[in-house]
């Protein structure tokens, strides 16, 4: 019996259900979008490490690097834009199966499979990372930081024991706030582990809200999502990001809302005002704000937090101490991402571009890329002696001993 089940499950892996496969293909452009984000984050991590002045205002650099940062970074390697895009795109994606087939089975399947599908790769990545950095000598990272004049390039902090390492890995999917402060984020090189942790936590906002949508009047979804978004914007929690992703998915799957999006806003007898103009305005406004903060007022980057009323109404909370040292939901990113996602729903040409094979395959591997951007030391055995020599040089320099090679 067990063998028969096993054979059936293998067959299930190899053969694809036609209906599910065509549904998947129709959403392939989301993988393509993820592919572009994966390429951007690849670039961001490299530049943040080797040419920090083109990424952040905190590190001084030659004039041409500063100009490159001001011109290109808001579009091609902006950290908050990339991570915000991933958060909203995740909310846009996790509800697809349920909205396509709103049954108890689909809902249960999403809830049961997601922790394993995200948790297992993250656990492996952290096990690799912690094992490697616990075993190797990391002096070379300090030396690179000196040579590159990059104070942000730091050696990952390792958990103190095996039990602490286990807790570090276990905690990743249990965090609900202060994602940047968790040990896994400190232990993972590049301190990027807060992002999957936040994305996973936010998927529960989507899970709760998505159950309601297929069973309620579509014309009221707009108001409901707007009220929820205003509520979470008030406190600047991540809920308004998740609500936006869910709402775009709702538009994509609900024929009534999709028709309204295509027909535009009808005011009286005048011709309808198309939504694509609003979406373009949203993207433009977002980029104008982004350029303003990155190129003109980099020292006031956090100033847009004044828009959130709770910061003024909560004792002791200011824009300077709200979520310091970790990411927060920004308005400029929100306007850009939501505008682009709405435009994608309206433009078949953009969708077919993003459905190109290369981008889709790159997008499917975006989680894997995130893990291995940073990891693994195997494969360069011939390089080992050179590396040993470097470490010896470094060690001697550190100990103040004269050392000739």
């Amino acid at each position: 019996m067990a063998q028969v089940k096993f054979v059936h499950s293998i067959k299930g892996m190899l053969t694809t259900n036609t209906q599910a496969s065509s549904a998947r293909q129709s959403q392939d452009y989301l993988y393509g979008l993820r592919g572009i984000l994966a390429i951007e984050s690849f670039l961001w991590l490299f530049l943040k490490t080797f040419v920090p002045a083109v990424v952040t205002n905190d590190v001084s650099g030659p004039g041409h690097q500063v100009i490159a940062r001001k011109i290109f970074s808001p579009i091609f390697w902006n950290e908050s834009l990339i991570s915000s895009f991933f958060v909203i795109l995740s909310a846009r994606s996790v509800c697809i199966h349920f909205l396509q087939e709103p049954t108890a089975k689909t809902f249960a399947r999403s809830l049961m499979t997601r922790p394993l599908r995200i948790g297992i790769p993250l656990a492996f990545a952290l096990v690799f990372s912690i094992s490697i950095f616990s075993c190797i000598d990391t002096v070379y990272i300090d030396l690179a930081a000196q040579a590159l004049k990059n104070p942000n390039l730091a050696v990952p902090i390792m958990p103190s024991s095996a039990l602490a390492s286990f807790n570090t890995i276990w905690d990743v999917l249990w965090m609900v706030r202060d994602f940047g402060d968790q040990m896994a984020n400190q232990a993972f090189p590049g301190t990027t582990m807060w992002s999957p942790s936040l994305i996973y936590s936010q998927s529960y906002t989507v899970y709760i809200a998505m159950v309601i949508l297929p069973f309620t009047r579509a014309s009221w979804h707009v108001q409901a999502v707007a009220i929820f978004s205003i509520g979470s914007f008030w406190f600047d929690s991540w809920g308004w990001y998740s609500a936006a992703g869910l709402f775009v998915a709702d538009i994509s799957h609900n024929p009534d809302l999709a028709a309204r999006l295509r027909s535009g806003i009808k005011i009286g007898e005048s011709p309808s005002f198309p939504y694509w103009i609003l979406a373009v305005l949203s993207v433009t406004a977002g980029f104008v704000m982004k350029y303003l903060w990155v190129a003109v007022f980099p020292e006031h980057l956090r100033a847009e937090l004044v828009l959130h009323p709770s910061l003024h109404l909560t004792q002791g909370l200011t824009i300077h101490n709200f979520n310091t040292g970790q990411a927060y939901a920004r308005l400029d990113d929100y306007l850009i991402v939501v505008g682009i996602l709405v435009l994608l729903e309206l433009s078949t040409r953009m969708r077919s571009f993003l459905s190109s094979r290369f981008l889709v395959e790159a997008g499917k591997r975006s989680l894997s890329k995130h893990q291995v951007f940073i990891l693994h030391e195997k494969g360069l055995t011939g390089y080992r002696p050179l590396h040993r020599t470097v470490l010896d040089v470094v060690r001697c320099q550190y100990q103040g001993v004269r050392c000739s090679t």
Partner: protein
Amino acid sequence: MLYVVSIRVFVALHELKHVPVASAIFVAFVSYLALTAAFAEAFYWTIEKSASWFAGSIFEWSRN
């Protein structure tokens, strides 16, 4: 890849062989690109695909 290999490549070239910073960074970039592509592919097929299959199997098993 970046922290374990590419930074080492940079340090080895720049500190030991006295290669200029820009050239050392370029070599580090090439190593980063090639190794990320290769290892992401391996990670995707071995760990991510298996995790996805395992998650689906656990769900189907829980229903019987």
